[in-house]
């Protein structure tokens, strides 16, 4: 019973991680670098959602859409202005540059909104109980939002022309270039979608916790871990990785103090990578 509850809790936590983890892995697939600026875009999404929900009084779903849109737009602009020129210098420089970018954006949010904790103006519900296993309606909603978004992304990548060209660039940039796919357009698109997902993920986390400028920074390591465990560059991998990290952390409570959660998460990563050096579903070397 206890184990079952832990697994349910882990799946709930993992689904929320999956949304931004997909963003991280999508950028990696197409642009070939780990974009740590994801953290600040989660913060931006959380605050955009706050403005939509509390300042403009929009309902939750509309606020989530707003969070996606704003974070996505900031993602395109920051990529175009800051990160794109770095990509010529290699993926390490770009990744480190993205950390500097995330500090800049986080502090821009802090400058505008301050540090004080905030919360969305949404009601809170008690858990549902299914023969002793408790499930939170809010987290089910988050779960549903996450699953819908993931399904939309899959459909987009599998069935639309643009989606196909994104995959083409991810699979083989040289071949895609020869085929006349405009890599710049694809780069902007992937930045928009990925950072939009980060913003959405930021707001989903904010719904459960509090909103402050550190909201993205607090979870970025777990998200990075999820993407790596699943296999960087693989979108289904990001989902699997997020669930593995989520469930793994919860199950660790069976044997260790909760104060060791993070450490256990990393040890799990090490074990996965020992057997599958490119992550569970990762096919690429990088």
């Amino acid at each position, binding site marked *: 019973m206890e184990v079952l509850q832990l697994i349910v809790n882990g799946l709930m936590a993992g689904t929320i991680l999956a949304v931004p983890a997909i963003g991280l892995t999508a950028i990696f697939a197409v642009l070939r670098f780990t974009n740590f600026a994801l953290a600040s875009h989660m913060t931006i999404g959380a605050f955009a959602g706050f403005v939509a929900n509390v300042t403009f009084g929009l309902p939750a779903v509309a606020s989530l859409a707003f969070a996606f849109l704003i974070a996505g737009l900031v993602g395109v602009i920051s990529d175009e202005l800051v990160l794109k020129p770095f990509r010529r210098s290699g993926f390490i420089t770009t990744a480190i540059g993205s950390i500097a970018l995330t500090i800049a954006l986080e502090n821009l949010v802090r400058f505008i909104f301050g540090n004080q904790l905030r919360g969305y103006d949404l*009601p809170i519900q*008690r858990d549902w109980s299914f023969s002793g296993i408790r499930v939170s309606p809010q987290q089910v909603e988050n779960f549903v939002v996450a699953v819908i978004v993931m399904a939309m992304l899959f459909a987009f990548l599998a069935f639309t022309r643009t989606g196909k060209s994104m995959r083409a660039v991810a699979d083989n940039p040289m071949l895609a270039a020869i085929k006349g796919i405009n890599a710049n357009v694809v780069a902007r698109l992937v930045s928009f979608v990925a950072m939009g997902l980060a913003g959405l993920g930021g707001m989903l986390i904010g719904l459960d916790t509090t909103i402050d400028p550190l909201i993205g920074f607090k979870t970025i390591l777990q998200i990075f871990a999820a993407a790596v465990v699943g296999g960087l560059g693989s979108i289904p991998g990001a989902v699997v990785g997020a669930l593995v990290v989520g469930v793994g952390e919860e199950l660790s409570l069976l044997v260790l103090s909760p104060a060791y959660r993070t450490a256990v998460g990393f040890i799990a990563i090490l074990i996965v990578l020992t057997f599958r050096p490119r992550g569970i579903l990762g096919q690429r070397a990088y």
Partner: protein
Amino acid sequence: MLKTTRRKVLKGAAALATTAALPKGAYAQGEPIKIGILTPLTGAGGNDGPRMLKAMTAVFEEVNKQGGVLGRKIETVVEDDQTNPEAAVRAARKLIEVNKVPMILGTWASAVTAAVAPVCWESKTFLMTVSGADSITLLPHQGFLIRTQPTSKLQATAHGEFLWAQGGRKVAIIGIQAPFAMANKEHLEATLKPKGGEIVSHIIYEKDKPTYRSEIDQMMRGKPDYIYTNGYAPDTVVLLRDMFRAGINLPKFAQSYAVPQPTLDTIPAEVSANVFTGQPSADIESPAYKLAAARIGEKEPDGYVSQATDWASLAVLTIAKAKAVSGVAMKDNVRKICQGSGQKVYSAVEGLKVLAEGKEINYEGASGPCDFTDIGDILGCRFRYMHVVKGKLEFLKLV
């Protein structure tokens, strides 16, 4: 957002130096006294630092309005400790070596205080802090440090008495991984056990996690009738939300700084139902707390705000008493104005007036009587308990 800024303080003080100070005559024109404030403005403490800064600034402004101290106005130099010991040490060195401040007020994280303290005592700079780790005052600080936060023993013993009086017999502790975690548990247990109560579960959780559902389930396995939380605002809010979802209606105790009114305003009222908070306090008849509340325009300020108020007041009064501005003068004179048989005063401005009459004073603060031991801990204090009713803090009792 903070309304008072360094710049505004400066401007206000400058205006005062030319107007209000004029009748005081010749000696009102001295160089301003620089006081260093090192508090978290970014990082994990970023939610608490600005509140403490606001409280300190309010006291200094009030003093400057009355003509300052020793005929000189107070000027604050604010640095951000980034809630990081390495960054905090660099900031402290700048305050000490460049701004030549005689004292530093406002460190929050215990690791930051322990890192900054050696820099302070080696350069004879006085340090006032809110950090809770018992090890802080045991450092060889030669008197250059005082802490207004009660020790784990003082706090947990008082909290234990409160829980017992509230009917807590089987208490569950759920606290953040922090230096005070273990000591708090021991003292709480030592208080409850002889009465027949017990600690039924003790969970230490990691900071920064988006949910503590499983930790709460683990805690509930002990079948507690009272929950004692011991964390900071961001994680306490997550705890309260998850406990509400889990349908736990038990009474919950929290540190006042973990659920200050501004934070309560951001969560649904039903989540904070049945929450009790405690903070160090002076006697019931002491107006210092009400004065602090009025100064910053808040009904029930939390423990950090009242302690910050007391640092600023102690700083001003010690300077006035010592008639000198230095870390050594602070160390040698601070106990002369805050304890003993002098006339009781409840604010810096009031104390300055009494001192000017040539009388001895005994400052009674917003966070307690402010009487310090040789190692810089408070001797004792009362505790002010509050009850959250419909999302608002209501005064419950003072013990």
